[in-house]
């Protein structure tokens, strides 16, 4: 490794290479910050995953299993259960998927892929990360404050108003989201500026790898959705503490207004989660099919289109609020339209594989897993987009199964695909292949056993966010919890693989994937040196990177 470092291009690493804690706390290096994001995401995954495991333990059998607060204190335990549900959602969304995709892989590989030496605003990059880390601490503090916020991630008033959550827990949660939102907006501005202004000569926007496209679209969604959440949260905060009545009917406000504001943010937010996954999967599928991606421009603009339409479908989360028939008809049609660009993406991935020289390395396995899971969730999404069906399925486990397939586990599969694809580039060592394959299969089986039966529970009418249920739901809930055990074991195996990779993985060359890997990050050695592309690469004559 030492000889590799001395061979780094522009070998003046010692100039800007602080060591020890200063290297991380004060970091302005996109790779170090990316690494910190990935570590934060792993910590978040352990906490958020533990919460969901506790939920599944409680739901394994009918009745109350683990009343930690003793007999007669059921209300406190139910609140605790709601806090678990809330914490699981917030942590998985804001502190696992977003940091891994945008912060982790985005920071690491956008500058590398476009041939930029670093992000446009390296110090702002540092602020983004530490704001997010503080937000996570604040959220955990909230969970342990006076019963915690048991509002669900949607934070609907009146449940979230001072009447039903009188303590400071919800206020702390709101402040945590404010910090996370600020972090995301700063990160998004950084990404957009980097992608617009710092591409290497010849790297035109239409030659940019699809992963960069996905990050660009995601950054725009963040830029426009997060401030709306911030506005809504501020209103909620002043409603709770300073006597305003934005969502308070007694003062002329309307709680449904919160739902509109929240979902105007919330729907783009789910695309923020999954779009970078599209990008990762596009790179992986192309690499391991040894073909350029099929329909590059269609793929790029499908993401742009998804981003636009994502802002115009929010009320499909609110069919039960009493929208009239015409409004529902609009939101049904607009939501169904999203199936078109996502279909373009799915078919383009398949067409990329078609006739390709496919090697099923672990990243490719996870990418295929992603496509399968995303299509599963997409199909139930098309069903749920219809107001007539959704009114029956609203707030049941069918919805839970749908969004876990389409964004949660599909997102996690994309993250794993990205991890196995790029870990050699990030740390210079390859993952242990056999263990990684076991990880894929156990995880794939685990999540399907976990989430598929929830379709059945949901269709039978089992509601979300309630710790107890009638006996007739017992069977599929038991199966679902078995799936949770498999998934948990598989997750622990993943952390073992991380440790094995870092401690005993075999050294990898600059490009371990062969001729399919054409993007710029594979032209620098592994691990990527601290400083790259001080001399901008000239892409003028090269083929469009795929």
């Amino acid at each position, binding site marked *: 490794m030492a000889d590799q470092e001395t061979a780094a291009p522009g070998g003046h690493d010692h100039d800007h290479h602080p060591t020890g804690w200063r290297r991380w706390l004060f970091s302005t290096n996109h790779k170090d910050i990316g690494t910190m994001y990935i570590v934060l995401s792993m910590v978040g995954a352990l906490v958020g995953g533990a919460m969901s495991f506790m939920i599944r333990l409680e739901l394994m059998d009918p009745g109350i299993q683990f009343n930690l607060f003793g007999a007669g204190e059921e209300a406190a335990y139910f609140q605790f259960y709601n806090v678990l549900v809330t914490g699981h959602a917030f942590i998985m969304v804001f502190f696992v998927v977003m940091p891994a995709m945008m912060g982790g892989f985005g920071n690491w590989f956008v500058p590398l892929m476009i041939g930029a030496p670093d992000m446009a605003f390296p110090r702002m990059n540092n602020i983004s990360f530490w704001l997010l880390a503080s937000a996570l601490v604040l959220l955990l503090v909230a969970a342990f404050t006076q019963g915690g916020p048991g509002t669900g991630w949607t934070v609907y008033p009146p449940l979230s108003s001072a009447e039903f959550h009188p303590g400071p827990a919800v206020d702390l949660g709101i402040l945590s989201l404010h910090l996370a939102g600020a972090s995301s907006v700063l990160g998004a*501005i950084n990404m957009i500026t980097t992608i617009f202004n710092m591409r290497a000569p010849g790297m035109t926007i239409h030659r940019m790898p699809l992963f960069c496209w996905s990050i660009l679209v995601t950054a725009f969604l963040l*830029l426009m959705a997060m401030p709306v959440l911030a506005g809504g949260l501020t209103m909620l905060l002043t409603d709770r503490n300073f006597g305003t009545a934005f969502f308070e009917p007694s003062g002329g406000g309307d709680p449904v207004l919160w739902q509109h504001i929240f979902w105007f943010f919330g729907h783009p937010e789910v695309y923020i989660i999954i779009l970078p996954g599209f990008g990762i999967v596009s790179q992986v599928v192309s690499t391991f099919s040894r073909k350029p991606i099929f329909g590059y421009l269609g793929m790029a603009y499908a993401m742009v289109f998804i981003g636009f339409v994502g802002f115009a479908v929010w009320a499909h989360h609110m069919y039960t609020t009493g929208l009239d028939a015409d409004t529902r008809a609009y939101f049904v049609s607009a939501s169904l339209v999203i199936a078109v660009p996502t279909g373009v993406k799915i078919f383009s991935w398949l067409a990329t594989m078609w006739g390709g020289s496919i090697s099923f390395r672990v990243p490719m396995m996870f990418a295929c897993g992603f496509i399968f899971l995303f299509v599963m969730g997409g199909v139930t999404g098309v069903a749920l987009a219809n107001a007539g069906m959704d009114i029956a399925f609203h707030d049941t486990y069918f919805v839970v199964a749908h969004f876990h397939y389409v964004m949660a586990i599909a997102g996690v599969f994309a993250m794993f695909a990205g991890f196995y694809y790029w870990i050699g580039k990030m740390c210079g060592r390859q993952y242990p292949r056999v263990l990684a394959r076991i990880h894929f299969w156990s995880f794939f089986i685990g999540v399907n056993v976990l989430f598929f039966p929830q379709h059945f529970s949901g269709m039978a009418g089992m509601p979300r966010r309630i710790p107890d249920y009638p006996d007739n739901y017992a069977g599929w809930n038991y199966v679902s919890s078995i799936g949770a055990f498999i998934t948990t074991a598989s997750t622990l195996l993943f952390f073992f693989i991380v440790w094995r990779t870092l401690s005993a993985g075999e050294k990898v060359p600059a490009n371990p994937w062969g001729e399919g890997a054409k993007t710029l990050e594979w032209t620098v050695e592994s691990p990527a040196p601290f400083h790259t592309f001080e001399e901008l690469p000239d892409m003028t004559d090269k083929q469009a990177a795929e």
Partner: protein
Amino acid sequence: MAPMRTDNRKKNRLTAMVLFTVAGGMVGLAFAAVPLYKLFCQVTGFGGTPKIAAQPPAAAPSDRTITVRFDANANPALPWRFLPEKTQVTVRAGEPALAFYRATNLSDAPLTGTATFNVTPFKAGEYFSKIDCFCFTEQHLAAGEEVAMGVRFFVDPGIFTDPNTQDVTTITLSYTFFPAAGGDGKEGEKPQQAKASAPAPVPVAGSPVKG
């Protein structure tokens, strides 16, 4: 290399400034959503928001009738008895009607309340117009005082021609009284369930008489 970097720096700052403006604008839009949403509800009758009319309609009333039911609620924080005098009336569309509610302050302190309102089904909000209503202003009630409060309204005959509202034969007008916010509301900061000390509640004409 160096001049190119400074060039980039300028360009980056400009881009970032534009993007910060966009983010700031979106925060502004979130707050602008509050008055816009209110306006939207008033204009379209969204969520069962009744219309407010200055005048009864000039056109002759329709022959078809519609039933209007009256619902009354008082928030537990406001110790008032609040009931409609009649639970329902049948009116001709386009003809103004007057209905009364009766409110009694059950506490031994003067209280100020303000009422929120809407109609169900929500889609009827567009066709339900109020000309005059006690809910437009705050209501002050002395300890034990009982008042009758009127609402003058009409149902727009358009309700019979809109395909969306063909199935509406009954509209329910609902009110909920809350303690008024601000200085006056403080009179009721200690809401006492002082039913005993209040004068005997006046019997309220709540029998289901047809209007």
